[in-house]
């Protein structure tokens, strides 16, 4: 058994690996151990880990099957990465209908977590653009799933954390775009109320919106930050606008003291002021707009050997401002800072996924260096607020939520459990359901 860590590097587990290679002949029956499909391990916590059991790595299921260049329909195996898809489709004027903040995830992973992006208010989740897939189960079944065939299994698998079976291939609808470039604006806002105003106004005619916030600002400045909005550009950039390919990488772990509350506070302050005038306009390549962190290989090593936690929650819009205010107050008061805090308003396009995280409301995502017990205590307190508000926490980013919290956030989990492949499980699932 090999030692594995996920992207957040908490926890480390021992598990066996299985590498199915050919979609037509693969079989996952009779393993004598519980299986979990595994893409690139980019989930932050333990939803992509399977301690003492077996993961089924899809890296060799990486064939394209069909690309309809006229209709923008792509069928490919589940281990194909979004980066590989973009490389193929962008030159033909197509783009992913929904993309998360990294392109280094697989199609299978994007489905299993029903990922969302900066255009959730207009496009919904990744699952909204999925037309069909094939599911192989440890029972030996092979199911063709779509909105009309095996519809219940289709819904359960979208956002189903890889627990309903192994997706061998999937078909997605792409979206047309004029150029690989983006027009964007960055606008400084002084507090949370301004964020809501900007969000309301921008979501109407900007395809992509997101905000970074300085989570350590308190009082009048609470919730201050930078609002970023963008759209695909009609303008081709001049030839000089060369694409920066991954130049930087973190070769080793940063020493643990590098990211502490003082450096994080300093970073947040400086970053907030990076726009002198408070507003700036840009024209750049889609990679720098969608995937700024992808340009630093292994950026997770920045947090040192102890790893880091992500906390992404969402709360309903109705009293969203009040709850987000309370959450930010609690975080600021704790003094434990987050390097990258992101705020985004989800739209009301319903995801087909049964266990999907996104729903109408405001989502707040934060990452924290592993401060240990005091951080876990803070998370517990945040959870109490989110539970009260009838919100939810994102499983793909979680390594610590209690079973009680999960079951509160996802009361439909028992229904979902009926569709779970009896031969499949994950560290996360055992932790939050006891199944």
């Amino acid at each position, binding site marked *: 058994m*090999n030692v594995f860590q996920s992207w957040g590097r908490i926890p480390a587990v021992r598990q066996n690996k299985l*590498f199915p*290679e*050919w*979609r*037509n*002949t693969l079989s996952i029956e009779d393993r004598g151990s519980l299986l979990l499909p595994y893409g690139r391990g980019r989930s932050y916590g333990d939803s992509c880990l399977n301690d003492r059991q077996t993961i089924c790595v899809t890296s*060799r299921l990486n*064939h*394209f*099957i*069909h*690309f309809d260049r006229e209709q923008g329909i*792509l069928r*490919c195996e589940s281990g194909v990465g979004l980066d590989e898809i973009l490389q*193929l489709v962008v030159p033909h004027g197509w783009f992913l209908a929904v993309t998360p903040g990294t392109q280094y995830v697989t199609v299978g992973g994007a489905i299993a977590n029903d990922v969302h992006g900066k255009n959730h208010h207009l496009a919904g989740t990744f699952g909204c653009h999925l037309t069909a897939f094939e599911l192989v189960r440890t029972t030996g079944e092979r199911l063709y799933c779509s909105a009309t065939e095996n519809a219940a299994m289709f819904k359960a698998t979208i956002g189903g954390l890889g627990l309903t079976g192994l997706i061998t291939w999937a078909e997605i609808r792409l979206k047309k775009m004029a150029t690989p470039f983006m027009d964007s604006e960055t606008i400084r806002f002084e507090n949370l109320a301004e964020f809501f105003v900007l969000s309301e106004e921008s979501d109407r005619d900007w395809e992509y919106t997101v905000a970074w916030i300085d989570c350590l600002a308190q009082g009048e400045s609470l919730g201050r930050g930078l609002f970023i909005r963008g759209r695909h550009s009609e303008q081709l950039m001049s030839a000089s606008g060369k694409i920066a390919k991954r130049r930087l990488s973190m070769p080793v772990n940063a020493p643990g003291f590098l990211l502490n509350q003082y450096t994080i506070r300093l970073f947040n302050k400086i970053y907030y002021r990076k726009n002198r005038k408070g507003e700036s306009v840009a024209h750049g390549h889609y990679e720098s707009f969608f995937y700024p962190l992808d340009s630093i290989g292994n950026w997770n090593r920045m947090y040192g050997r102890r790893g880091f936690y992500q906390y992404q929650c969402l709360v309903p819009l109705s009293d969203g401002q009040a709850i987000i205010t309370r959450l930010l107050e609690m975080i600021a008061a704790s003094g434990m800072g987050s390097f990258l805090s992101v705020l985004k308003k989800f739209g009301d396009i319903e995801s087909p996924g049964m266990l999907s995280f996104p729903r109408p409301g405001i989502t707040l995502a934060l990452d924290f260096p592993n401060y240990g017990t005091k951080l876990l205590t803070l998370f517990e307190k945040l959870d109490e607020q989110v539970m009260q508000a009838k919100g939810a926490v994102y499983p793909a980013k979680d390594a610590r939520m209690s079973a009680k919290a999960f079951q509160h956030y996802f009361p439909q989990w028992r229904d979902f459990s009926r569709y779970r492949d009896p031969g499949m499980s994950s560290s996360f699932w055992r932790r939050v359901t006891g199944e």
Partner: protein
Amino acid sequence: MKKILIIGATSAIAREVAKIYVLQGARLCLAGRDEKKLHIVADDLTARGAQAVQVLTVELTDPATHGDMIKQAEDFLQGLDCVLIAYGSLPDQHACEADAGQTLKELNTNFISVVALLTRLANDMEQRGHGVLAVISSVAGDRGRQSNYIYGAAKGGLSIFLQGLRNRLASKGVHVLTVKPGFVDTPMTVDFNKGLLWVSAETVAQGIVKAMDKKRDVVYLPWFWRGIMLIIKSIPERMFKKMKL
């Protein structure tokens, strides 16, 4: 537009080589044993923009099938510029030690059938007066080791054969390339613990295409294996035989 025949086209390295040639607009013939797998690879290449891909199902270990395969490839490609031979197996050393039949079978897969195939291809190309023959051998063929000497013997024999063939065809406009990969992370080596010396099939494929373009004779992939093998080859046999390698 290059006309390329890839033999053993479902192997991880071959697939990556094919992907590179698709980007260059080549016409491709994919030969191998398993028709369904070949079609998976062919569909992938077509989705990536390949203009012409043909699948040829052949039992390569049987030399009687070789003539037909070459003929069909030449018909489809309307000529033949390059051939990459990428098929092979990684024998279970212990099983081979216990059973001569098993040993001969592995030698046939990795050496004898390849020699038969190359004999035909070489004659065709010699007649035409041009072509590239790229063959995947292995660093394992540079010195026999107790853990892997059946495979090593097959690949070592193959390397010597290629050396002679290169010598014969050098003045005839036909180029022979011997590829010696080190540790490659492929399905063939799934059970190994991977360390620093391991590279991806993609990296090896880039090296192969570059070596074919530059008409290199023998390439170690990655390059540092030339140094490693130089050291391994220079250890006196008296000491080497006592080492656990």
